[in-house]
């Protein structure tokens, strides 16, 4: 899917009463790099730190890269993580290793649902 940019100072924008804002100056690689590093961090961390924490970190970095400040990004990351893990684990029954495997012996006696 292509994203089409319409500058808000173009005449059709005023006529349409609906358009997108001016794009930020081109050549900003920071957000793209941050998002990419979030994906790589997930790939490195997921087997060791579990999917839940890795997803939160990925969502945090992707959300910050998309223009949110750190605190809203952290809150958004919590919401996205809970929502999407619920969809994947409860809805689609994907057997993710949610928590770090190193914690599993400690959590053995806790009344938690099966996490793997």
């Amino acid at each position, binding site marked *: 899917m*292509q*994203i089409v940019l*319409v500058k808000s100072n173009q005449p059709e924008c005023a006529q*349409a009463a609906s358009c997108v*804002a001016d794009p930020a100056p081109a050549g900003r690689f920071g957000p793209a790099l941050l*998002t990419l590093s979030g994906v790589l961090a997930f790939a490195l961390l997921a087997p060791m730190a579990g999917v839940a924490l890795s997803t939160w970190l990925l969502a945090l970095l992707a*959300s910050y890269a998309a223009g949110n400040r750190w605190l809203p990004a952290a809150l958004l990351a919590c919401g996205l993580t809970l929502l999407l893990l619920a969809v994947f684990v409860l809805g689609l029954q994907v057997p993710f290793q949610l928590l770090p495997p190193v914690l599993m012996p400690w959590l053995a006696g806790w009344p938690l649902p099966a996490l793997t």
Partner: protein
Amino acid sequence: MNLELLLALAGPALLGASLGTLVGVLPGIGPAATMALLLPASFALEPQAAIVLLCGVYFGAQYGSSTTAILLKLPGEASGVVTAEEGHRLALKGQAGVALAIAALASLLAGLLSAALVAGLTPWLARLALGLGPADVAALVLLAAVALVCIGQRQRRKALAMLLLGLLIGLVGTDFGGGAPRFTFGLAELRDGIGLVPLIVGLFGLGEVLASHAGLRASSHIAPIGRLWPRRSELQASLAPALRGTGVGFVVGMLPGGKTLLASMMSLALERRVARDRAQYGHGALSGVAGPEAANNASAQAGLVPLIGLGLPGNPAMAVLLGAFMLHGIAPGAVMFERSPELFEAIIWGMVLANLALIVLNLPLIGVWVRLLALPLGLLTPLIVVISVLGVYAQSRLAFDVGLLALFGLLGYLLRKADYPLAPIVFGAVLGPIFEDNLRRAFMHARGDGMELLTQPLVLPVLGVLLLLLLWSLWAGWRSRRGV
């Protein structure tokens, strides 16, 4: 067709159409990437329900794109660019509702006619394919690859380079002739080759997000929709363009590399040529909405004919669908018609249901879909990134595949920046192994005699068409350089 099966398909058709409309409306993730992400989920479904779900996504994306093209001149999919020309001008004249209804009805007409054509043509093509040997199939695959580069590509050299890159990606894995690892760099994860899901989601999903990190943000204004139901005269004026668009779209869609955008463009050109009042074009012509919309829907559905009949995908979305067939252990082609004829019947009914679902879902809910565009990018892109990563990880539960996703995302981003087409990469990766397998078997049957291959029924005619296509391509390139 029993009512029980029809009811069983209604759910996947409705869900697929809804998801497709959603990805058609929202920027950032296209139908091929969405279908790739749904592959693991579709494994839990019956084969026919899974195929109908994925088809619904593809058809829905074409429809969702036209909604935003008409109301906002913001096509979510490439095929909507043509509809945006006349459709948005109608919206500016206060006829947005009529343009949307005509687009929907033209798409429905094209969808139903295409379903009938797919039902009639595909078994015939599959029967024809039964007499083909591996040499014929290899020649057809070669033709498909060359046609992809020659037809509808602005930059043929770039398209060829991307096709070769795709072929290289398709070579990674275990050599199925001798069992030796190829381009695996000693990595056990690459022994099974590079998965289609990280490739497609990376190139089309993550790559798009990375490329869009430039501050794009939709406003919350929505153009007034106005009167929705067209007058009888408007319906009558749109019928012939919709029928012509269906014909053009279906023919283009069956060609390898036939794009929905190309079908829409050809339909608009045809409508301009046959119009009695050509002056209406550029000021909001209903036929400029009906024709291209019918054409892109017909083209999307016509891709099922070579896919189901011959096992040849015509675009990345069809390549994902081929992956879904493989996941369910179904080989498209004559074997499928022999072993599970009920599956083809279910797919046709699923196509009809998905098209009906699109009308039911979309016309009354147009305002809701467009309002989704007001979602801030700060919410939309993290959502797309996390869904992409979790979708890829859920499929194989290999962190390595997420690394591949990042790699292909970066590649997609860089190639977009350099204006390279991405679809040929997927083509090369999918068609390469099919070509290699058939060519090897053909040589084994012919005991290594290359001339023996030319005696196969389809090889020489296909190579002739291929030569004509290459000559035409060279001639067209020469004309464009000379500015003719």
